[in-house]
């Protein structure tokens, strides 16, 4: 079964209100774009949970509180589990038409928070979990996370040691392997696509997961005005991809015929400046390998149907 074509949801459909305002994120922060736009899609009947990380650190400094709708910080590990509680309370208290959304960083999602995320998906709790992926622990000063890409310099994978020796964990495939109700990858370089996916997640009766690449000028060593462009280039050069998973089906939203060159994309970022030509080749090789898997989903896996029938007696 193929994925529903989403009605495009554009700038004009977004709520006119700003729900993330006056925060203290660095100028040009990609995470802020992700949070701001998602909240504008979801509207004011939204309960937001944000774990420890940049978005909470910059948004909740009493008495400067940047979320204009209901929001709370969770423990670092507890985004999904707190969301589960929020969602349970929404049901138990009979609150109608409300969303429970989380914005968690890559560390909060792929490392310390994966236990709670895995549990929430397993319970099929009605929550929207958005991982804004800036590819390191930024709030604490750019340390390697499970989503830091191969070769990237962080303060715990210094350039002297060649940057990160590990590849990026694939959270999208991991949540898909859970049989999640809806999952998607996105990028703030493709905002319309991102907006559409958040809008899709709104309608899901169960757990949705959106993994949005959100450049961090401070951690990546780029200029503040480059964030959107870099996020787009990441997709264009094939180091990131735009996809969805629903009803056990994958769907690739953007199928690059050929990839934009890697080197300029990498070299404009301070975190990759130490890479040698052969390092870049290695990165390209892993990219190509990854894309063989991705293309497989897309070409071959869109066939079967899936039905979700609860037990008659339960």
């Amino acid at each position: 079964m193929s994925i529903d074509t989403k009605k495009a949801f554009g700038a004009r459909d977004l709520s006119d209100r700003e729900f993330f305002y006056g925060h203290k994120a660095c100028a040009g922060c990609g995470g802020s774009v992700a949070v701001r736009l998602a909240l504008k899609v979801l509207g004011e009947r939204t309960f937001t949970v944000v774990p420890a990380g940049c978005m909470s650190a910059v948004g909740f400094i009493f008495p400067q509180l940047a979320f204009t709708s209901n929001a709370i910080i969770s423990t670092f590990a507890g985004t999904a589990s707190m969301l589960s509680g929020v969602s349970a309370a929404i049901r138990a208290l009979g609150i109608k038409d409300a969303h429970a959304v989380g914005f968690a960083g890559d560390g909060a999602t792929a490392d310390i928070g994966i236990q709670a995320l895995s549990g929430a998906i397993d319970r099929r709790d009605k929550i929207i979990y958005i991982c804004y992926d800036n590819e390191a622990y930024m709030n604490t000063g750019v340390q390697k996370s499970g989503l830091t890409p191969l070769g990237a310099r962080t303060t715990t994978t210094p350039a002297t040691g060649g940057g990160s020796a590990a590849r990026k964990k694939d959270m999208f495939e991991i949540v898909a392997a859970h049989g999640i109700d809806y999952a998607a990858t996105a990028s703030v370089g493709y905002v319309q696509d991102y907006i559409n996916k958040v809008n899709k997640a709104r309608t899901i009766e169960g757990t949705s997961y959106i993994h949005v690449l959100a450049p961090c000028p401070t951690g990546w060593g780029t200029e503040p005005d480059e964030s959107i462009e870099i996020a787009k280039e990441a997709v264009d050069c094939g180091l990131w991809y735009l996809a969805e998973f629903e009803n056990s089906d994958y769907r690739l939203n953007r199928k690059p015929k050929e990839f934009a060159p890697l080197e300029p994309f990498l070299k404009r970022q301070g975190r990759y400046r130490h890479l040698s030509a052969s390092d870049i080749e290695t990165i390209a090789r892993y990219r190509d390998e990854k894309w063989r898997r991705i293309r497989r989903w897309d070409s071959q896996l869109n066939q079967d149907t899936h039905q979700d029938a609860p037990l008659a007696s339960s």
Partner: protein
Amino acid sequence: MAAALFEGRFALAFPSFGPERRGAPVLGFTRIDDRKITDRSAVRECDYVVVLDETLMNPAIADGLKPGGKVIVNSATPSKYANGGFEVIGLDATGLAAETLGKPITNTAMLGALIAVSSMVRLDSAVRAIEQEMNPKLAQANIQLVKRAFASLQPKP
């Protein structure tokens, strides 16, 4: 800071740190003494206030200044702060740094200014400290910068 150590003096430097991100104004303190410094309470009174970003200049900036203390500001036009009720010394550190380093990184230039104004440490101590802390190429440019900044504030003969 590090410069003082090359004179066998003691220093305690407290960078400030907060939830705010790159771009937000930040505050730091340094104590320098001939004896070991153990006082770790916040610095409330100081001899010098060094302002690296002119846009932060406001009257409150000198609130903790001791009588006779000085404000050293990164500005091409320091004279406009003259009647704030405290002594202001200006240096166009941004310009100077841009010229010397090719980047508007003003810390070293302002260090030169501070040394010139305060005589707190000797210039050559600062030079040695820079040599030790930075890689050679960077160090050379910065040494030039600290010297130029220092020179530009020497009383004209």
